[in-house]
């Protein structure tokens, strides 16, 4: 059996422990499988009736064998006790918090992930950067329904439950890019609720943090409709509102923005006032969006930088520039 670690690298300190237990179990499973299926097949082949056998013949009148039954009850029981002991130890290692861990607040909502770094006041959308070689604590929060934080290379998983904060503790042991997958059914966008996890060396991580802090502080300059806004629309709204005109709304042209849609008619912006503009309100998190649903429908949602860009364009007059 190919070790999983050959195909799916181990990226946390827990992964090695978990893979070890998995391999231990796999060996035992293979043994049980071969014994049970082997005897089954052997008996079927050896004791089957063949043409010419006496049709009235009976099998041996065996009712049981107490010693054999005790043995085949005791051995699995012993194996399971040993296994439980191994699991017990590893489980308590997995859930043990570390006082000096690097904290990341993870928020799960339908259908995107948000990672906030409280130490540096940096927030990232649909991605999660982590330093390598450090103890990490993730504080998991869900805003709407149950989600589950799963990075297969990390080998651990934890549900994010509304109203009930949960935590994960691990040490990153391998640089790389991994997929964060939602592992608890959360609605129509469940299959698409993904993010990239970037585990970087400490120095790379700090450099990235610095870059984020500068970008978030920097004001949004002059925004161009053709260069900035249309690019955003193409990236995030193409499938529904450029190829398909769903909801009667087309974002393919500036006139389409003026016309609006069938569900929310009228111009999508109010020039000079982003807070009163449909297009700005409809991409906000939470509830109460015009039409009843946050856009893009089902996520992934726009980053705060992109939202600010749209807001800035509206405040600058929402011109066709």
């Amino acid at each position: 059996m190919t070790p999983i670690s050959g195909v799916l690298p181990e990226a946390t300190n827990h992964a090695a422990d978990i893979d070890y237990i998995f391999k231990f179990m796999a060996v035992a499973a293979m043994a049980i499988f071969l014994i049970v299926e082997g005897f089954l097949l052997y008996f079927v082949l050896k004791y089957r009736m063949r043409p010419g056998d006496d049709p009235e013949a009976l099998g041996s009148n065996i009712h049981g064998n107490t010693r054999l039954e005790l043995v085949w009850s005791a051995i699995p029981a012993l194996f399971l006790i040993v296994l439980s002991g191994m699991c017990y130890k590893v489980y308590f290692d997995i859930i043990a918090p570390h006082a000096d861990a690097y904290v990341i607040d993870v928020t799960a909502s339908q259908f995107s992930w948000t990672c906030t770094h409280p130490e540096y006041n940096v927030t990232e959308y649909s991605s999660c950067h982590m330093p390598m070689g450090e103890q990490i604590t993730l504080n998991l929060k869900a805003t709407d329904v149950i989600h589950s934080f799963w990075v297969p290379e990390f080998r651990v998983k934890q549900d994010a439950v509304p109203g009930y904060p949960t935590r994960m503790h691990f040490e990153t042991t391998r640089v790389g890019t991994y997929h964060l997958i939602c592992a608890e059914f959360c609605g129509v966008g469940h299959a698409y609720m993904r993010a990239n996890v970037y585990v970087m060396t400490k120095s790379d991580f700090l450099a990235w943090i610095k870059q984020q802090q500068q970008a978030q502080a920097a004001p949004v300059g002059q925004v161009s409709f053709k260069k900035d806004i249309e690019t955003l629309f193409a990236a995030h709204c193409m499938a529904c509102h450029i190829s398909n005109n769903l909801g009667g709304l087309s974002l393919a042209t500036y006139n389409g923005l003026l016309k609006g849609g069938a569900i929310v008619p009228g111009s999508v912006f109010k020039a000079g006032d982003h807070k009163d503009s449909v297009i700005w309100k409809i991409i906000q998190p939470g509830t109460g969006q015009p039409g009843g649903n946050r856009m893009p429908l089902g996520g992934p949602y726009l980053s705060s930088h992109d939202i600010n860009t749209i807001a800035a364009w509206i405040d600058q007059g929402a011109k066709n520039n």
Partner: protein
Amino acid sequence: MATAAIGLGVPDHAQSRGGSWAWVRRYILSTDHKVIGLNYMYTSIFFFIIAGLFAEVIRMNLAQPGSKVVSPDVFNQLTTIHGSAMIFLFTIPMLVGGFGNFLMPLMIGAGDVAFPRLNLLSYLLFPPAGIIMFLGFLFGGAAQAGWTSYPPISIQTPPGLPHDYGQICWLVSVIFVGVSSTITAINFLVTILNMRTRGMSFHRLPLFIWAMLVTVILTLVVTPALAGALTVQLLSIVFGIPFFDPAKGGNVLLWQHMFWFYSHPAVYIMILPGMGIISEIIPVFSRKPIFGYKAIAYSSAAIGVLAFLVWAHHMFTSGIQPWLETYFMFATMIIAVPTGIKVFSWVATLFEGKLRLESPLLFALGFVSTFTIGGITGIFLAAVPVDLQEHGTYFLVAHLHYVLFGGSVFAIFSGLYMWWPKMTGRMLNEKLSKLHFWLMYISFNCTFFPMHIIGLLGMPRRVADYDPQFGAFNLFISISAFVLGASFLVFFYNAAVSLARGEKAPANPWGGRTLEWTVPSPPGHGNFARVPVVSGGPYDFTKPAAWFGPTPTEGSEELT
């Protein structure tokens, strides 16, 4: 009293009253446990076909990454109803309502169940309950939160709909099915405790009856607990009562505890009767007693007790307290022991047997081989550190299908092939039966074994789409699933030909020693012309099954 009967119709008191409604009185409103049992089977198989077709659409959508055979919300409805219908509208009614009703009174030597009219009521609740589950499709969409129906997603109104009618239909449907099950459980428990024939002590009961006994005790105690949970969820949706709303003091994890307290014992309700069927078939087709009768009987009881104590192993990643996680891990590991005892005993029964490799035995052996795999992967999932990787992935989908399909469905078909002559009075075509077995067994393993691998490699469950790297596996799985679906066509053709012009069945085509084989195929109303008296166990092939007590004017006679 005449016990001859013709074909499927069972002569009934109602038969003497003619008229155009005689058919309804005789076949739908009969209180005869055999008619009711067959009705459960027809209705269950109907829902099995629909739920199976849903599975084929699911596999069509998953055959390739990025395909949009159905939209994501319809996909979620299909997965939800597939699971719910297979569990509540097929497996449980088929095993308990179908096989339980038909066989149990016969096997204990009774004329019917303790409360025949209540039995009819139980059945009559079932088809409407099933239809209600599907009604959601007519009201904007069926339930789409998975068969586990976790809040908050299950109480969230789906986008675009004014109310979640589908979820309301689902909740009402399952409540109805639960009421039906509970009434049946009371009926069967009283019957088994009180109506066993002379000489039928507990240690002479067929193992199917031991299995049914534990099953109905489980049903009696946990189904009302589910009803409580379902009612509370229904109130949450219809009236906005904040049981699961953290903003008003409610608790999201509450549902999971209440739901799994029922649903874990439910999986034993779904497998124990199947195991009972296997325990009946292997001795008959090996021509020797079951190995370890007491061990199998007592392990069923042990599983019944332990079933109540392990529910939160479905919640290892949900954030429950560490001491609870370790307790549930230990308890779940323990439950593997009595299960393993059964598997070893079945295999040991084959030793020095005279094995007749006919279709009932083939399906029984198929069950043992696939259920063993399912049981093994269950241990993987019980180990908490490993479960943290496997929960919510296709590894779990593989495990559950190995135990529910490889287990319950194989056992159901094993039982159908075994008792078909007794229930219908006809024989099936053995060549077609074997063809069905091989097609089903091979395609089943091809469909579900690869799921273990993609689960471990990173494919979550309940997804309408997936990463391209899993494309080849999923295509192979989907193709195998179509072959699996097609294998049932062989069964239906075989069944139709048998019913139309199959060879007439003798009373005891397989040489069984349980009491149902001492009466004609099919049995008449009232089952036994004279009280059967049992003087030994049900797997002693050196002796006849029973001798019969005196009729009012005759002496007793042995059965040859």
